[in-house]
């Protein structure tokens, strides 16, 4: 089985989000970048599936040279080789077009990625790639097994889950608890240095959206503390002041 895992390169979940250049650019100052947590789940499951049934595991990232340490980490976790599409990921359509092109070229049986990126939270790329390639796309997938030619999955729905089956090839947007995040070991880190990381060029410049400006939410006022022996006061405030009861 040939598996492709698409990863994002995003600010660590504890990052303070700030903007520069008159609120038109993300401020990378002091920010650590990681593999998107949802993509990291997809990658972890892909490593397990490869261990079970053999085949190959490729990671793909659409990003400029700065994303290579993140890609190397994915190689250290267990991918065999990597593709970096050398372009700034302008919008979902732009990224989906690149992934669809290189996924088709590589003839993958299974394409995994996170349910959404944690920077723009769009959750759209898997569905777009599916539609471009005419393949089923399933998301958010919280359990995935491959039996022969069939993918057996659980998809999270509001208030529960739905079990489904679909034939390879297909695309899945993944989330926990599909697997547990894997931490690269020393051997993985050493071998990642020499695994192939192929840099390719973008095949299309098409976009449909653009960010004009960023904005931070207004600062929160101070908390109003209520004595623990006077909980009736809290109920009164919720009713009369916040008007939510």
């Amino acid at each position, binding site marked *: 089985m040939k598996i492709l895992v698409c990863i994002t390169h995003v600010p660590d979940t504890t990052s303070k*989000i700030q903007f520069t250049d008159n609120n038109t650019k993300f401020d990378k100052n002091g920010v650590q970048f990681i593999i998107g947590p*949802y993509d990291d789940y997809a990658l972890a499951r892909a490593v397990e599936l490869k261990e079970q049934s053999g085949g190959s595991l490729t990671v793909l990232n659409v990003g400029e040279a700065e994303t290579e340490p993140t890609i190397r980490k994915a190689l250290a976790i267990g991918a065999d080789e990597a593709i970096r599409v050398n372009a700034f990921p302008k919008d*979902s*359509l732009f990224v989906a077009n690149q992934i669809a092109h290189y996924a088709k070229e590589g003839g993958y049986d299974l394409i995994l990625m996170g349910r*959404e990126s*944690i*920077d723009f*939270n*769009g*959750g*759209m790329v*898997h*569905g*777009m790639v*599916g*539609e*471009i390639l*005419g393949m*089923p*796309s399933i*998301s958010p997938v919280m359990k995935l097994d491959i039996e022969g030619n069939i993918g057996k999955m659980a998809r*999270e*729905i*509001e*208030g529960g*889950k*739905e*079990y*489904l*089956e*679909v034939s390879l090839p297909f695309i899945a947007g993944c989330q*926990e*608890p599909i697997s547990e995040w894997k931490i690269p070991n020393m051997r993985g880190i050493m071998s990642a240095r020499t695994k192939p990381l192929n840099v390719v060029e973008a095949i299309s410049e098409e*976009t*449909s*959206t*653009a*960010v*004009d*400006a*960023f*904005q*931070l*939410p207004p600062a*929160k006022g101070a*908390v109003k*503390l*209520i*004595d*623990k022996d006077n*909980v*009736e006061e*809290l*109920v009164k*405030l*919720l*009713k009369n002041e*916040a008007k*939510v*009861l």
Partner: protein
Amino acid sequence: MSILVYIEQAEGAIKKTSLEAVSYARALADNEGTGVTAVAMGSIENSQLAKVGAAGADKVLHVNNERLNAGIIQAHASAVAQAYKKVEAKTLILAKSSLGDAVAARLAIKLNAGLVSNVTDLPDTSSGYKVKRSIYTGKAFAETSISTEHKILAVKKNAVDLKTDGVEAEVELFEVALSEDDFSAKITSTDQATGDVLLPEADIVVSGGRGMKGPENWNLIEDLAKSLGAATGCSKPVSDIGWRPHHEHVGQTGVKVAPTLYIAIGISGAIQHLAGVNSSKYIVVINKDADAPFFKAADYGIVGDAFEVLPKLTEAVKALK
């Protein structure tokens, strides 16, 4: 010409977030001088469809096909695309949800439409077409322009107020042509909590963390939730250890909620948890540690032991009602 709204249902009941999307479309249509048509899939009673009119639609296209009761992504996308062409729409509105996202993404390609998700406000069309969306898991917003003629907006909960005083909508049965490819994903079973308020849709959420000590104490959370008509949630470690089901896990890697009231009990307020709740209108924190970071993100707080405070709070809420 009309704005089209994609409606989701569960067990025949139309989702409240979809009705909000209808109200959003109504406000947009009033600005543009167009109409609102909604498309609903599967077996739905007319009494449920009437809510779509009350929320602001002029017309409902009902695809009364049992096979569409389940959220089969490709089949829903094909059906919505046919409705979109029929009403000659230029804009599709839907509620942000796990199914909504998946269907919208396929439609963006099918309809050559620019898609923006997590939309928090009506578009600004004074120059170009700009929408505000929530990004960085609620930690920021992006003013986003759409450059395509066709547009899809996936609207975040509470972007507009739900309208309930709309007129009766005309219901038309709508036949769609679906291929077997549209049903290539076969749903074998579903496992759904019934009778509870669904977490992503709830107006009030009562959420417990590791401070609740164990699943045997969850009756305290459930009693308070019941008294408030609220949904229950939890922090990630609580679902990781299996005290609560995964679909209750709130935060960066779980469900993102946007209720009017979020009550957090025995949750420390780690940044990844806050990322899932920062769109709440009001936050109440109950924690025995006065230095718990969650108090910084709260509107109201009680420093105290959950096991003492919760029963009293539940009584006080019941006394009010």
